[in-house]
């Protein structure tokens, strides 16, 4: 702006400087340049006077500067809210720990413990073939052969190649345990029954 005092100001430039000139916001040098330019534009001179008068009256109403009293207590209100917020935030600080972190830690510890116990008793053999278990092949009665073998052995009768059906269908015997007990108690039991057998 230092050189502006010596150069002419266009009307458009002058208009942009009018408010600051009217309200005394220009430096002395700038103001001198504007005054010089205004001599060539009397209509703008009148506008400056109008702006000064209207805004001076607006200032006189005083409302523009009177928002101070609306916010006079703001610092107290803000500090009170700030303290409240700080107090609640310090309580809230542990909330995620209690709600998320602790259960997560608990789960993690349980998983570790379970893993360590499983590793201790882990079988060296491969997993059983579940497919085989799931088939509907009937498993033979586990003790049948053993008991009959014992019965034949104790009675002195040589075991039959297919003993199970014949022995289980012996006359007068409803329970295999009865046959076994009889065979033990009477040594001739086996030979007697054997002679009856076809």
């Amino acid at each position: 702006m230092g050189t502006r005092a010596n150069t002419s100001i266009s009307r458009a430039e002058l208009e942009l400087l009018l408010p600051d000139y009217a309200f005394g916001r220009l430096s002395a040098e700038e103001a001198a340049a504007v005054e010089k330019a205004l001599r060539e534009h009397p209509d703008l001179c009148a506008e400056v006077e109008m702006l000064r008068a209207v805004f001076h009256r607006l200032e006189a109403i005083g409302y523009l500067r009177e928002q101070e009293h609306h916010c006079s207590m703001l610092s107290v209100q803000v500090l009170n809210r700030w303290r409240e917020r700080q107090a609640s935030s310090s309580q809230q600080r542990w909330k995620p720990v209690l709600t998320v972190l602790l259960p997560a830690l608990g789960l993690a510890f349980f998983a570790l413990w379970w893993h360590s116990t499983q590793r201790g008793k882990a079988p060296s053999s491969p997993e059983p073939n579940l497919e085989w278990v799931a088939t509907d092949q009937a498993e033979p009665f586990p003790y049948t052969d053993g008991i009959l073998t014992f019965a034949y052995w104790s009675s002195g009768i040589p075991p039959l190649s297919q003993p199970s059906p014949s022995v289980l269908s012996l006359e007068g015997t409803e329970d295999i345990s009865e046959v076994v007990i009889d065979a033990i108690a009477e040594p001739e039991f086996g030979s007697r029954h054997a002679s009856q057998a076809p």
Partner: protein
Amino acid sequence: MSQLTTLSLASDEELIQEFRQGDRERAAAQFVRRYQRFVYSVAYRYLGRHEDAQDAAQEVFLRAFENLHRFQQRSSIRTWLYRITVRVALGMLRQQKRSAWVHWNDAFSEDEEPTSPSLSPEHIHERQEFEHYFHRLLQSLPEKQRETFALRYIEGLSYEEISRMLGTSIGGLKANYFLAVRKIAKALLNGPYAEYFRQALNTNGNPSKHEHIPR
């Protein structure tokens, strides 16, 4: 010199330093006192109600305290607060789902404080009515013109600072300022208070003491 006086004279940088490493509450109180009128008036221009402007201003300072330790001082505190205030005010407007215009259709609050104890109720009422009218007038301007006028005329900020706040070139700001001032003056001379303002043209703007503001 008392600590309070020392802090009130401290620069923004010293105040931030005090807030970060010294007496936070004292620095915070001084921080609010320094910028409360600015933040409040920006919020009021956007929200149009004193109660809303107070809520917004409180929220602005609370957000500022939460983030002051991250403030890099690349812009001035005022610019930073201006941006927070506009964000908070726009957020409040969105929340309310109504613009500030709606408030102006309401009667002014009964609990408004008197603007000056020396004024009669009639004057107070007139002043409040005028305040509502003038605020409506400001709201009728495009946002950039309104904010440029308020920041330049009312807040007295430099074009450089306003330019950083609004993101507008200084040439653009000057044009906005000129247009806003001209529109306001013409509206005042032709609006409901025309008689009052036309008198100013004859008296060089000087009103008599406690002069009524006739519609």
